[in-house]
């Protein structure tokens, strides 16, 4: 199993979600059991069908104003919402890391951001004008706003990052793969530092309808691993981490928050929407073995936990297969019940929450839980936040199309 040759640490984190416009705000809300899933009306406009109301987890307040304040400059409508999320989260992560990318470091810095979709808000606006209003007048910046690599470019331009910069896309595992690829760049000495993470903004009338058509969306806020669960809830947001070698962090006096100890990636090569036990196990095993996690008395597990009947059942079976009789030694959190499914940004935002939970020695509760499902008999954190003794976080992402990515972080002591 591949192991990192260099020690790679997280020195800064940022997040933006329905739970708040920063990593601490997102974590605090999740600890307090304050969910961000609310009913919202989505109106396709005069050329579309009637408006629909559905639960969704949208970032609160004025994201443009918050991002402009964080960056200290005007942005207006110059970028799509998913790029705004990436810029805001990257700024927060770099601030926490105390990292200024200047001089030669710009050439040795990377950006890798994951997105399951692209600039859907801008694309849908353009298509509504073209097909709905039947006008040729689409915004001239539509292409740069929509392209899947736009957030990576925006972050690179904002902070002067001139090394490897690109996007990863693996549906709901996209930012997991982005974190893994950023670490691989550092491990292979192609970069000294990397801003990694992801962003997603897909809560538009037509895109949500597409998710509904697939039968993936619940009419109620999602309830991972619960009896009566019947689907996921879409969320919007983004997150970022600053990765660097331990050596680099120490040389500049930065305090690591956690170590990225292992990554595991696999493909089910099986089905568009049904998960496989083997694929999930392979990803987890790769991450755990790569991190040399053996016989750990307690891990914190941040489950993929979408709230769909099949995913949660399969993930529970995979955790039983990996941990055997001791699978209930490990507390399981499923924070999509609070911030919704952030799709391409899910891994990084869940990673931020999970790392902060290790640091706080407290795990946030699974929300919207109705009662046990015998197929999902995990050690779920239910009711309220609870103390944990774990020093290791196992983070799962099992995406549509059978693309899996698990990550292992160690609490920094």
């Amino acid at each position, binding site marked *: 199993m591949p192991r990192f040759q260099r020690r790679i640490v997280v020195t800064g984190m940022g997040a933006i979600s329905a739970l708040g416009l920063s990593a601490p705000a997102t974590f605090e809300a999740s600890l307090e059991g304050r969910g961000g899933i609310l009913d919202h009306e989505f109106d396709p406009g005069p050329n579309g069908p009637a408006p629909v109301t559905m639960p969704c987890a949208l970032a609160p307040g004025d994201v443009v104003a918050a991002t402009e304040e964080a960056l200290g*400059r*005007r*942005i*207006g409508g*110059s970028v799509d919402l998913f790029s705004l999320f990436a810029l805001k989260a990257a700024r927060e992560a770099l601030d926490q890391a105390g990292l200024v990318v200047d001089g030669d470091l710009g050439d040795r810095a990377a950006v890798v951001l994951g997105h399951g979709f692209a600039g859907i808000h801008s694309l849908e606006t353009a298509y509504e004008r073209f097909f709905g209003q039947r006008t040729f*007048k689409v*915004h*001239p*910046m539509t292409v740069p706003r929509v392209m899947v690599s736009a957030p990576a470019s925006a972050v690179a331009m904002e902070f002067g990052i001139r090394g490897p910069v690109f996007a990863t896309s693996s549906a709901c595992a996209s930012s997991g793969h982005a974190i893994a690829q950023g670490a691989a760049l550092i491990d292979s000495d192609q970069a000294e530092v990397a801003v990694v993470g992801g962003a997603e903004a897909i809560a538009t009338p037509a895109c949500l309808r597409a998710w509904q058509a697939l039968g993936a969306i619940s009419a109620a806020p999602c309830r991972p691993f619960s009896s009566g669960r019947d689907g996921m809830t879409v969320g919007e947001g983004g997150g970022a981490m600053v990765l660097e070698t331990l050596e680099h962090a120490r040389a500049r006096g930065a305090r690591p928050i956690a170590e990225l100890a292992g990554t595991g990636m696999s493909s089910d090569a099986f089905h568009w929407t049904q998960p496989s036990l083997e694929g999930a196990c392979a990803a987890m095993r790769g991450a755990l073995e790569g991190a040399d996690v053996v016989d750990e008395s307690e891990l914190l597990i941040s489950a993929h936990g979408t709230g769909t009947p099949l995913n949660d059942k399969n993930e529970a079976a995979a955790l039983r297969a990996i941990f055997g009789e001791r699978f209930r030694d490990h507390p399981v959190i499923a924070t999509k019940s609070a911030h919704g499914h952030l799709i391409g940004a899910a891994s990084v935002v869940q990673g931020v929450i999970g790392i902060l939970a290790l640091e706080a020695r407290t795990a946030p509760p699974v929300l919207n839980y109705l009662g046990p499902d015998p197929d999902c008999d995990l050690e779920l954190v239910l009711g309220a936040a609870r103390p944990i003794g774990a020093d290791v976080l196992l983070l799962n992402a099992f995406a549509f199309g059978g693309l899996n990515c698990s990550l292992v972080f160690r609490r920094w002591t």
Partner: protein
Amino acid sequence: MASQDEELFDLIAQEALIDRGKLTREATLADLGLDSVDIVTVVFAVEERYQVEVPQDAFDGVTDLGGFVDTLGTLIAPKIA
């Protein structure tokens, strides 16, 4: 300055993310950093607000902001008269 110029300067500052205080009729497009993408973005906003069509070659030979807003002003004048 004519109110029409001021209105267009406000719109240019907003769309091209340029400090409003730097916008004068004498400033050149190059000095303001107004590139081709900025110009098509401003033109799009003008077409939207005033419901006009701006020909693609409308700014041929225009190098300063005065010429730029004069060209736009000629096109929008019938709409705001």
